[in-house]
């Protein structure tokens, strides 16, 4: 089984910083039946399928839908593969192709959801009326990894600057709000199914310098 090399970093690639408002993020979750991921009462994505308890909701991994396709969500890594490939890297890194079975395999019991970047990127959650005012801003950031050039992260920034400067109670409150904002944003905007997405211009990811 061949690894889809089109999703690997490439010496000709650069960091994607162009406008992506017509594009979508895609993220997998472990569930055989995608219809079970939608709450039957509200029609919204169940929050348990946004991220697992061991992951950090304030820094959520996705991929850019396009060259990275829904069938690629089945790629999963062995312990050896995780050591070699589950790291951030430069977009133009020269990466060896993962080896099937030794380093990666295909996990079949996965489904996925997509979310429009336009609805998430730079979306602010203002808690100005709260007893502890705060603004949390969602950012969609290109963060290539050795296994997937099209890896993006959903991150958050707040008006508090460095969280390490805050006392424990304040830091805990900020973390709670970010967690809530992340769940709300995704559950409100996520869709099951494959949306229509334009082809990303090569200018966005190929370095012509």
């Amino acid at each position: 089984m061949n690894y889809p090399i089109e999703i690997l970093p490439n010496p000709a690639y650069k960091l994607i910083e162009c406008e992506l408002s017509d594009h979508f993020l895609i993220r997998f979750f472990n569930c055989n039946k995608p219809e079970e991921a939608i709450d039957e009462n509200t029609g919204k994505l169940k929050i348990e399928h946004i991220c697992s308890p061991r992951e950090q909701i304030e820094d959520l991994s996705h991929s850019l839908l396009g060259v990275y396709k829904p069938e690629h969500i089945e790629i999963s890594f062995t312990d050896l593969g995780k050591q070699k490939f589950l790291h951030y890297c430069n977009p133009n890194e020269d990466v060896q192709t993962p080896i099937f079975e030794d380093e990666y395999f295909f996990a079949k019991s996965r489904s996925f959801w997509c979310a429009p970047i336009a609805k998430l990127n730079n979306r602010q959650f203002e808690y100005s009326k709260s007893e502890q005012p705060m603004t949390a801003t969602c950012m969609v950031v290109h963060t290539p990894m050795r296994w997937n050039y099209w890896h993006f992260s959903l991150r958050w920034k707040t008006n508090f600057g460095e969280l390490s400067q805050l006392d424990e109670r304040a830091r805990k409150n900020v973390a709670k709000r970010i967690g809530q904002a992340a769940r709300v944003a995704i559950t409100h905007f996520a869709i099951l199914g494959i949306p229509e997405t334009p082809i990303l211009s090569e200018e966005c990811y190929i370095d012509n310098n």
Partner: protein
Amino acid sequence: MAQEKHYEDFISFMKNNSAKKTLAYGLDVEYSKQMRKGSSSTILRNTGETQSVIPKDSYSFSSFNSTRQFIQLEKSFRSQIDKNPGYFGDQSHYILQEKMKTSAELILSYCPENISLQITNEGSIFYTFTKKGYSIYIQHFLIDEYDDSDEAILSIFRGDDNLLNYGGNLSSVFSELSKFIVPNTYTVLEQV
């Protein structure tokens, strides 16, 4: 011993809640006591509005739909707790259940069109419900307290527009919600 612990937890929980606020709903012991005394008009004051009290006669139990929704929520909560026992630390199941009932009943007073409940690994309940074109998300933290009462965070959407985000204690969150939609069956009251 387990039963005694549960009973002590129950008494502590009721005392804590009675000191702060009272839910005008048939399941609440304190309000029922006040009503039986027949002097509710001088005891209870509406927190969010300028009108005074809810007349005794208009007090009523939830409709069939709210009852059905409550049963579904309770069943869902119990099932999720059983699957994820570590999410709420060593908090007694009885206390968790009572706290869940508090927020669930408050939400059901708004007669939501649709509602769901999910627990999170932060020891909270994440409610999603819709009403009159609004999508409302309330996260009720069951194991942390904020100013000696349960903390909650509210977000309200209408279409793609995020109209409000608010964090505070449970009572203040529902006060903010009431500025958008009004509860149908009862209002959160504050003990004078």
